[in-house]
């Protein structure tokens, strides 16, 4: 009798744990689903101006008080638009990397930060993070035009005003892959590999 109870106990535990794994997987999938169907969700990452298409042109005021033009034809230099938010930890972690990229690629690249929201919060962030050397834009329209869903997001605009590469960037490697994509003339490194095979 007690042996039978032990066996049934083992079976029940196995079933309970297997069901828990299933519940976990389901809740995770529901989370991803919510994110994908949201109006500014990850599915949108593939939308907005495509690589190779002209980037929408904007003339915007910077936080420091000047004004710059984003996109548009007839530029002499490329632009790296970096979309961030003061509360995004990954963005903060990438700031030193961006500064060093901007210094080493000074000949041909301008680094531009972009965000939206309350001005005072951004002014404080701009000062604290030491971004004084770079233009910092506050514009909801800019993010909408490039369909920025998740942060940090980067867009590389070439001298001809066309989008050269873009995507979600979580690490130095992903940032550098944007430049690799530009040099190879493909939308992403993945596409380059696909073309080769």
């Amino acid at each position, binding site marked *: 009798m007690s042996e039978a109870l*032990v066996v049934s*106990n*083992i079976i029940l*535990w196995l079933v*309970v*744990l297997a069901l*828990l*794994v299933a*519940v*976990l997987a389901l*809740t*995770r999938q*529901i*989370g*991803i689903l*919510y*994110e994908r*169907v*949201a*109006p500014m969700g990850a599915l949108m990452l593939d939308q907005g101006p495509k690589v190779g298409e002209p980037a929408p042109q904007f003339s915007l005021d910077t936080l420091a008080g000047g004004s710059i033009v984003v996109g548009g034809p007839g530029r002499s230099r490329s632009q790296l638009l970096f979309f961030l938010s003061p*509360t*995004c*930890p*990954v963005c*903060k*972690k990438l700031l030193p990397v961006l500064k060093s990229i901007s210094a080493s690629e000074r000949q041909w690249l301008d680094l531009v930060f972009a965000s939206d929201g309350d001005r005072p919060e951004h002014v404080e962030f701009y000062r*604290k993070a030491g971004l004084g050397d770079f233009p910092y834009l506050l514009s909801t329209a800019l993010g909408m035009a490039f369909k920025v869903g998740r942060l940090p997001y980067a867009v590389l605009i070439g001298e001809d005003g066309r989008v050269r590469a873009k995507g979600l960037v979580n690490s130095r490697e992903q940032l550098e892959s944007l430049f690799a994509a530009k040099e190879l003339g493909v939308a992403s490194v993945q596409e380059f590999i696909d073309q080769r095979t």
Partner: protein
Amino acid sequence: MRDLAAYLAAFVADPVVTRALGAALSVVLFAGAWQKLRDRELFQAALDNYRLLPDALLRPAAILLPAWEIAAGALLLSAQSRVAGAGLAAALLLVVTGAVAINLWRGRRDFDCGCGGLSSHVGEQTLSWGLVGRNVLLLAALALSLGEDNARLLVSIDYLSVAGATLALLGLYVSSNQLMANHPRLQALRNY
């Protein structure tokens, strides 16, 4: 009625229950510490979002908090040091829950809690009263894990029960974190 209360008290004091709770809490603490130490810069930026510490203290705090978690988790594992471990863990939970509550009162909630560990795979988990409730439950579990009654001798099947219950508790913990992280995304959809 008094019988039922007595049964319930005996049940939560049973070694199987208290040990499963203690083991699950240890795993939660270790996993949190591991995640935070693996990417300290990221955790430091998450701490900065709380706007409670001056800049100079962010770096020490980003090391102290995971170290505190490891110490509490390790002490919880052994029967001799269980009380000390539970005290450390409770103090830590009160500190971090206080930080979350202060920011909720300030109206700042749209940033990742930086909880790490078993809630780090759920995507962004923003601040909410649900997070406070979760930590209160963890505190209750800590208290229960201390109330062990050694009257009963453990037999082999009890170890199966402890292992199963520990894994089940961890599974429930991760699932509820995921549901909490999903909630603001669902809210965003409803308001669209």
